[in-house]
C-alpha cells in the first residue's frame, strides 16, 4: 500500500535545452489507478520511467509510501513493470511459473504457496495451478503472466502502453481485465497510454500531459465535462469536441450572420489580449437541430451524414458570411475539421442542406484565445 508523489520533478535529457518533464507535481493516492495520457513526446513515458528509476531526476523528488526514492536503484523501489513480455516456462507448473521470482528472493515456501493461491483465485486459475502451460488456452497463459507480477505484491504497478503489442481483439479484452484486476488488488497503479479511450474507460483519475507540462488531473467525467483548457477539451472525448474561435459582438459570439448568446461571467474574464474573440467548444451530443427562426443558433452546411441506427451524425462546415468559410479555425478536431453534431437518426438532413444548429448553453465550453484557459 503506497501513495506516490511527484514533487516538482523535472527531467532534462542530456543535450536538450527544454525539459521533457517540467516541474511535475502529481499525487497518486494509495490504491488508485491513475492514467497518464498525452500525445507522443509529451513526457508521459519519461514520467513513468523516472518513477521506475530508469531515468534520472534532474530537479525535485519522488516519494513512494512516504519514502524518498529519487536516487534509489530500480530493484530497491518495490515496483513492478507489469507483464510486458513475461515468458512462460514449459516445464514448470502454473504455480511455479507464478511464484519462482519469490523463490529467488528467498520467500519461505508456505508464504509463496499462500500468495500464489491468492493470485490464482483472483485470476481464476486455481484449478490449473498444477498444470503446465501447454494445457492452457491463450487467455489463461496471459493471466499466468499477470500472476507473476501480482504475487510479488509490489507497492506500485507500472504499465507503459501494455496493450500496444496486442492485436485489436486481445486489446479490448485485456483492457477490461487489467482494470478489473487492479480494482480487486487495490495496488497503486500508474498506467501510461496515448489512447484517450483507454484513459476514460480504465482510470480512477486521468492526468493529461502535453510537452512535459501537466495540463489537468481529474476523474474521467471531470475532464470530459469541465476541461481546464483547449488542449484537454480537444484531446478527451471521441468524437472530439467542436472547437472554434469567433468574434464577440455586443456580448454575443458572431457566427456568420448568426449570433450565439454568451454568459456574462465568461465575457467578463476576456482581456484586451483576446482581441474581442472567444473560443467556443461544444460536444457533438450537446447540440441539436433548431428551427429556421431560432435566433440563438448558427447555420451549418452539411457535408456528410452517418446513420448508426441508435445515433445519427451530421458533419458540416459552419456558414460564415454568405459562403462557407474555408479558413474556419478548428483546433484539435479529428473529424477533418468538420463540425460534428449528434442527432436523431430518423431526422437526418441531406448532404448539401444548410441546417440551423443550437448549442445547449449549459454544456458550452468557453476559453480565452490568449491563454486557452477555461473561462466558464
Amino acid at each position, binding site marked *: 500500500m503506497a501513495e506516490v508523489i511527484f514533487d516538482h520533478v523535472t527531467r532534462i535529457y542530456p543535450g536538450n535545452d527544454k525539459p521533457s518533464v517540467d516541474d511535475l507535481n502529481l499525487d497518486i493516492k494509495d490504491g488508485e489507478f491513475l492514467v497518464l495520457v498525452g500525445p507522443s513526446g509529451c513526457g508521459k513515458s519519461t514520467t513513468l520511467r523516472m518513477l521506475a528509476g530508469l531515468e534520472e531526476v534532474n530537479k525535485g523528488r519522488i516519494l513512494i509510501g512516504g519514502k524518498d526514492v529519487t536516487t534509489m536503484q530500480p530493484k530497491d523501489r518495490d515496483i513492478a513493470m507489469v507483464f510486458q513480455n513475461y515468458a512462460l516456462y514449459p516445464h514448470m507448473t502454473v504455480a511455479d511459473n507464478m511464484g519462482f521470482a519469490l523463490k*529467488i528472493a528467498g520467500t519461505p515456501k508456505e508464504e509463496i504457496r499462500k500468495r500464489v493461491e491468492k493470485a490464482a483465485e483472483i485470476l481464476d486459475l486455481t484449478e490449473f495451478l498444477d498444470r503446465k502451460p501447454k494445457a492452457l488456452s491463450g487467455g489463461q497463459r496471459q493471466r499466468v503472466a499477470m500472476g507473476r507480477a501480482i504475487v510479488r505484491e509490489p507497492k506500485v504497478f507500472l504499465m507503459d502502453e501494455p496493450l500496444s503489442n496486442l492485436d485489436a481483439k486481445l486489446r479490448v479484452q485485456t483492457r477490461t481485465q487489467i482494470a478489473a484486476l487492479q480494482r480487486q488488488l487495490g495496488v497503486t497503479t500508474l498506467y501510461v497510454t*496515448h489512447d484517450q479511450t483507454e484513459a476514460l474507460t480504465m482510470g480512477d483519475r486521468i492526468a493529461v500531459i502535453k510537452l512535459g507540462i501537466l495540463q489537468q488531473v481529474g476523474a474521467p467525467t471531470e475532464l470530459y465535462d469541465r476541461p481546464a483548457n483547449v488542449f484537454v477539451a480537444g484531446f478527451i472525448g471521441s468524437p472530439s469536441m467542436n472547437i472554434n474561435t469567433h468574434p464577440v459582438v455586443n456580448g454575443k459570439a458572431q457566427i456568420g450572420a448568426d449570433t450565439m448568446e454568451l454568459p456574462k461571467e465568461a465575457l467578463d474574464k476576456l482581456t484586451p489580449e483576446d482581441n474581442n474573440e472567444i473560443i467556443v467548444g461544444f460536444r457533438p451530443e450537446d447540440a441539436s437541430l433548431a428551427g429556421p427562426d431560432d435566433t440563438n443558433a448558427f447555420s451549418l452546411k452539411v457535408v456528410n451524414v452517418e446513420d448508426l441506427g441508435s445515433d445519427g451524425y451530421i458533419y458540416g462546415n459552419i456558414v460564415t458570411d454568405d459562403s462557407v468559410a474555408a479558413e474556419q479555425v478548428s483546433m484539435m478536431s479529428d473529424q477533418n475539421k468538420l463540425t460534428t453534431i449528434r442527432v436523431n437518426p430518423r431526422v437526418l438532413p441531406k448532404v448539401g442542406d444548410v441546417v440551423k444548429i443550437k448549442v445547449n448553453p449549459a454544456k458550452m465550453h468557453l476559453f480565452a484565445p490568449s491563454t486557452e484557459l477555461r473561462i466558464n
Partner: protein
Amino acid sequence: MSFNDNPQLDPRALKATSVKAEDPAAPSEEPPSLKITSASADPKMFTLPWEQPLSTWPKDILVNLPRGISRHIVRFVRVGDEVYAMKEITRNVAEREYELLRQLQKLNLPTVQPIAVVTGRHDENGEPLEAILVTKHLRFSLPYRALFARTLRPDTAERLIDALAVLMVRLHLAGFYWGDVSLSNVLFLKDADAFSAFLVDAETGDLQVELTQGQREYDIDLARTNIIGELMDLSSGELLQPDVDEIEVGNRLVDRYHSLWSALTDTDKFNPSEMWKIEKRVNRLNELGFDVDELEVTTTEDGKRVLVRPRVVDAGYANRKLLRLTGLDVQENQARRLLNDLDAYRASTWRDGEDLEVVATDWMREVFEPTVRMIPPEYRSQIDPAQFFHEVLDHRWYMAEKAGHDVPMADAVQSYVAEILPKQMMDAKTVDDLNAEADSGVIDDEATYDDAPAHPDDDDDYNPEFDQDAAVWSH
C-alpha cells in the same frame, strides 16, 4: 515505448533504414495491400503465402530448426538459398524492431540480421492479418534450450552466462537499453570452448546516446531473474545437471557484467614513472577480446598522477586480426584458436622470420582448408567450419596424449568424424519436441493452443470447451 529522440545518436544508426516505426498516437492507415520493405532483393519473397496465418504455412516451405520460447508465432522458412525466421506481430512492433535491428547492425553489434517487414496482409476473405518481421536465420546458432537438450559439459550454463554478459556490456556501451534480457531472447553460437551470444528480440529495446545507471541496473536485475527462471525450468524438465545452483548461475551474470564493465570503462591512476601500465591495460582488454580505439590519458594538476581511461573500445580483436591475415570471419575465441594454430605452424615450419601474411596463406592452403573439406556433406549445415577445426584440434590433442606421440591431422579428422561428430547432432524428434515446448508459451495465436489439449501430459481432465475465459472478469 520510445525514448526521446536525440540528435546526438551515432549517424550510422540514424541513417540505418527507411522504416520508421510510427507514433502509436497517430498511426497512418494500414496499407490496403501487401507491402514488403526488404533489405533483400530476392523475388521469391513475394511468392510466399502471406495471405495465410503463419501458423498454417505449408510444411514444405518450413525448415525444422529449433526455436526458442516466444509469446508470438515464429517459423523458419526457406527462401531461395537462405533460411529466414518469420515472427508474426503487430505492425508497429514489427516496424520498430526492424528499425532497431538495422541500427544495431550498422553499429556492428551482434544481432540477427533484419531482412524485411511485411505489412498490409489480408486473408482470402479480406480480413487483416498481423504484420511479419523477417530476419535471417543465424547459421549454426542454437537457442539455449537446444543446447541443453543434448548431453553437454557441466559448465554449459556458466559459459552461456559469460557470453550473455559480453553481449549486454557491448549493447550497453553502444547505448542500447534492452528492457527484456533473457536467455530466450538470445541465440548462441559455439565459439571454440566458449559461446558467442546474439540478440534476437529487440521488441522492448531502445537506442540512446548513453544509458543511465538505472537502465543498466534494471537490465541486469531482469536478466538475473529471467536466467534463474529459465534454469529452474530446465531443472523441472530434468535437463539441467542436478548440482547446478540456478541462483548462483544468475548471480554470476551480475558479477561477470560488472567486472567486464569496469575493465572497459574505469579510470586507472598511476605515477608518471609507471607508463608501462598503459600497455598492461591495453593487453588486458585485448585478452578480453576488445580493441582500444581511443585512450584518454590525462595528468593531475600537480603532474604527479596519470589518469588513463579507454574512450572507444571495439569488440573482435582476434577476429579482425584473423580476417586481415586469412579472410576468415569467425567468432572471437575461434579466431584466437586459429591464430594460435597459425603461430604453431609458423614455428614448426621454421618460418619465424617470414611475413605473417605469407605464412597465413600457406597455413590456409595446407592446414585449414584440407581439414574443413573433410566435413561430411550431411553435417555441413550443422557445424561451422571454424568450430569443426577447433574441435578437431582438441580431439587431436587428446588422441596424442593417449598415444604418447603426435597424431597427423588427417587421422584426427577421421577419428573425430567417426566418433564425436554424430553425438553432437540433433535428430528431428528432438527438434520437434523443443518446438512443441516453445509453442506452449504463445499467447496470441489460437491455432497453437487449440491443438494443445489434444496431447495432454497429465492433464487428462482438461477440456477447452469448458474454459470460461470470457466469464472470468465479470465478477
